[in-house]
């Protein structure tokens, strides 16, 4: 990848880069605060406004964490798709770091979706798990992105790592519409997508509030993970420059 500038490709900057201090990136504390605030308030509002559902009683409240977790993971994988295409098309190194940050957050949220769905399924459906198309395709989505992260840990060459990640990222992201449409395309135990016409107004308020809260949390995590990766990369570059400049063993 042409944009991966190894120190040796810029001998003129070697000594200067070795001495350069690394600017500390900003933590978006306002975003962290917004995510935390909306999460807490969303759950309070969800609990206060939701009467027990006529079929599942208080179990309906699990909707406010299960559904937002799933939606937020979809947003994360949309970022993965965009970043992956950018990596392959523009050979952009920063897009690879964004790709990794979004894929990691998406994997965490998909795992959370599966666990919460299982906790919801046991008392309502009567089973923790069943191999219907929605659950199976979500499990596949989760495994693809666990594989994505394992692949990154396994590959040391940044150029190959970026390309393979992008390939897996695109494949994984293409699974998202399958997961979303699975309840329409195939018969499942999982119900169809809900819409404001099938969900009482009180529940819609809590669901929307929590969906925004999860989206803010996703944005905070992805931003910080991405900036951390940039930060770590700059430190690595400097260590390499130092090693080249001074022949030091501190080349980590």
């Amino acid at each position, binding site marked *: 990848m042409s944009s991966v500038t190894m120190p040796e490709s810029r001998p003129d900057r070697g000594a200067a880069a070795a001495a350069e201090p690394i600017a500390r990136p900003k933590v978006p504390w306002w975003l962290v605060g917004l995510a935390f605030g909306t999460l807490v308030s969303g759950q309070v509002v969800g609990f206060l406004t939701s009467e027990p559902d006529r079929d*599942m009683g208080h179990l309906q409240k699990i909707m406010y964490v299960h559904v937002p977790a799933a939606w937020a993971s979809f947003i994360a994988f949309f970022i993965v798709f965009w970043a992956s295409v950018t990596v392959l098309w523009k050979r952009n190194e920063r897009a690879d770091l964004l790709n990794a940050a979004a894929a990691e957050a998406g994997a965490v949220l998909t795992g959370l979706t599966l*666990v919460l769905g299982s906790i919801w399924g046991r008392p309502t459906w009567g089973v923790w798990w069943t191999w219907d198309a929605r659950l199976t395709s979500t499990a596949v989505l989760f495994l693809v992105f666990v594989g994505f992260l394992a692949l990154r840990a396994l590959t040391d060459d940044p150029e190959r790592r970026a390309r393979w990640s992008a390939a897996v990222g695109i494949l994984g992201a293409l699974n998202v519409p399958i997961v979303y449409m699975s309840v329409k395309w195939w018969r499942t135990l999982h119900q169809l997508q809900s819409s404001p016409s099938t969900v009482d107004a009180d529940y819609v308020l809590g669901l929307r509030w929590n969906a925004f809260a999860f989206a803010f949390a996703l944005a905070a995590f992805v931003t910080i993970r991405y900036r*951390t990766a940039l930060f770590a990369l700059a430190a690595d570059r400097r260590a390499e420059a130092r090693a080249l400049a001074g022949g030091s063993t501190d080349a980590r």
Partner: protein
Amino acid sequence: MPVDGRVTGEWPYVIASYVVTWVVFAAYAFHTWRAWSEAARSADRPEP
């Protein structure tokens, strides 16, 4: 036990789902903080 569709004993499941959510967020936040401080450590390492 009657078979009438009436659901009881929901709270353990509801509480478990919220606890799991917060535990996952907290664990991920910890992971994020650790990666950050590791990057900061290597950025602050003085020139040998």
